[in-house]
């Protein structure tokens, strides 16, 4: 049994959030009736001329800036020739030797890895270098029936950004983290919603194995048809196992394209690559070259605070733990919610705790997105402040929270309605403490003999007697004084 080194490179196609197509004005709308958004350009009719969508160029340049790419002064579009019914003009407009963006990288982080390996990742902050990012047009959507295929051209000609990584990904988990990190950045920049299940982000994987000690890369095998990030991880893990078994048996791997079947958890052969495809690229004479300087200047102000910077800022500005900062920054709407709620908080860390514990579990139990959260950030801030000020207890806080989540009412209103007020009156608490001490001589004796934890039991009894209304901190102080 040999050890094998795994080399993975990903090609990610991203649908840009433009309103119109890449080279014509047809609307970009998903889920529309078939063939309702077409024109002579995207149907490939003779004589129709493409004109570039300014916004698509800008979004690609913005992505390049977010990912630290070099944006060369000039880019151009080329024709990539092939025959397939999803591409009626028999070439796809793409970028060949002068893409919009070169180099750059996708920074990974611990929380981008699958949950089960987050704690054991050796190098969570690895940066996966990129080869290039280019802009092209998407093809039509094919649906296959028993005896024929049906083509819908609504998607044909919509802008598609292709992000190509260097073959520097070394495990299925790293591929998962790469896609998760990339998706977050694309969402931060508002260039795409990057939802793989909706086809807004699509991924082709190239994977090869070579025995340890060998410098030359092994046979490259391409996997297609994954539609979730976890599917990519599983497909790659399956391929590593399959290729390892082949190599151990002394078989020679062929350069081929395989299809992932999510239901069976296996890849199967699509086609063997007999020769390098010859696409006969040449510059598209219908499209003029693009000078990028002005486009880059236009989008530079739109480079957002990126996830890594936001995580670091949350930790330093609000004092939340690195882990909590990561969870909050993972989801842009959640991060915005937190910032609104924490703006006037006495203790922003407590606001983060309420969001990460109570709020996230309530949202998930009711299958509600943060955008539709019934509790406004301002109300959550108010609730946490009321608890921090000792006006109500943490336990009462949970009751108020549940009511806020159900009704959307302000915490002040609910506290008033329910008559919830934490008992901080010294006299009242002293009376309750006396009761508790009298009723529990055993605990008192234990405490006096040095078992200091017994005071927590007594404190619990005080809370019970007060029906949860006593201020636990005050109760603890009074008990300690009385038992001293």
């Amino acid at each position: 049994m040999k050890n094998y080194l795994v080399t993975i490179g990903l090609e990610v196609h991203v649908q840009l959030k433009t309103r119109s197509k890449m080279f014509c004005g047809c609307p970009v709308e998903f889920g529309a009736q078939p063939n309702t958004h077409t024109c002579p350009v995207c149907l490939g009719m003779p004589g129709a001329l493409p004109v570039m969508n300014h916004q698509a160029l800008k979004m690609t340049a913005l992505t390049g800036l977010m990912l630290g790419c070099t944006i060369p002064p000039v880019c151009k579009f080329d024709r990539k020739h092939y025959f397939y019914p999803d591409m009626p003009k028999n070439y796809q407009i793409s970028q060949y030797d002068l893409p919009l963006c070169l180099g750059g990288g996708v920074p990974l982080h611990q929380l981008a890895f699958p949950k089960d390996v987050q704690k054991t990742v050796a190098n969570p902050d690895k940066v996966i270098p990129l080869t290039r990012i280019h802009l092209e047009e998407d093809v039509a959507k094919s649906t296959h029936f028993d005896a024929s295929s049906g083509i819908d051209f609504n998607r044909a000609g919509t802008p598609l950004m292709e992000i190509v990584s260097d073959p520097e990904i070394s495990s299925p988990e790293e591929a998962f983290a790469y896609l998760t990190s990339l998706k977050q950045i694309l969402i931060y920049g508002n260039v795409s919603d990057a939802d793989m299940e909706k086809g807004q982000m699509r991924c082709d994987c190239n994977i090869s194995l070579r025995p340890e000690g060998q410098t030359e890369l092994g046979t490259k095998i391409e996997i297609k048809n994954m539609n979730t990030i976890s599917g990519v991880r599983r497909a790659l893990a399956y391929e590593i196992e399959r290729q390892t078994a082949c190599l151990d048996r002394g078989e020679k791997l062929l350069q081929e394209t395989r299809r992932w079947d999510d239901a069976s958890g296996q890849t199967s052969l699509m086609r063997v690559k007999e020769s390098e495809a010859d696409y006969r690229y040449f510059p598209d004479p219908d499209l003029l070259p693009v000078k990028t300087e002005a486009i880059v200047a236009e989008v530079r102000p739109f480079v957002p605070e990126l996830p890594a910077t936001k995580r670091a800022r949350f930790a330093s500005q609000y004092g939340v733990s690195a882990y909590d900062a990561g969870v909050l920054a993972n989801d842009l709407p959640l991060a915005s919610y937190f910032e609104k709620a924490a703006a006037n908080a006495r203790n922003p860390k407590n606001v983060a705790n309420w969001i990460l514990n109570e709020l996230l579990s309530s949202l998930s139990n009711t299958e509600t997105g943060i955008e539709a959260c019934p509790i406004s950030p301002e109300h959550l801030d108010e609730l946490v402040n009321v608890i921090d000020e000792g006006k109500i207890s943490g336990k009462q806080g949970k009751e108020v929270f549940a009511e806020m989540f159900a009704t959307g009412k302000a915490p002040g209103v609910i506290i008033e309605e329910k008559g919830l007020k934490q008992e901080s009156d010294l006299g009242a608490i002293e009376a309750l403490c006396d009761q508790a001490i009298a009723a529990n001589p055993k605990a008192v004796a234990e405490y006096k003999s040095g078992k200091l934890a017994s005071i927590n039991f007594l404190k619990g009894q005080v809370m019970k007697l007060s029906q949860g209304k006593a201020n636990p901190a005050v109760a603890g102080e009074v008990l300690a004084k009385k038992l001293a």
Partner: protein
Amino acid sequence: MKAEFDVRYTAGLARLNLSEAEIAKFQSQLSQVLEYVEELKGVDVSQVEPTAHANPVFNVVREDEPRDGFTPQEALANAPRQANGLFAVPKVIE
């Protein structure tokens, strides 16, 4: 210098079925074209930037404004076969 043109390979890329006689004919015609291109290689272009366009025009773009195109009936008017609003084509298997 005689330039060779691989007619069979190029015809294959273009999905053309050529007879042996056609291959021979195109072979000689296309080789002549290549020979002419070889002649152009003699011109000194060291000071000329490569371009696919005659005019130095850049950044011809349109704003991202959607507008209506064909109705589905117009879109499908030339389709040899159609079904459920789709262009129906011989089954493609990848």
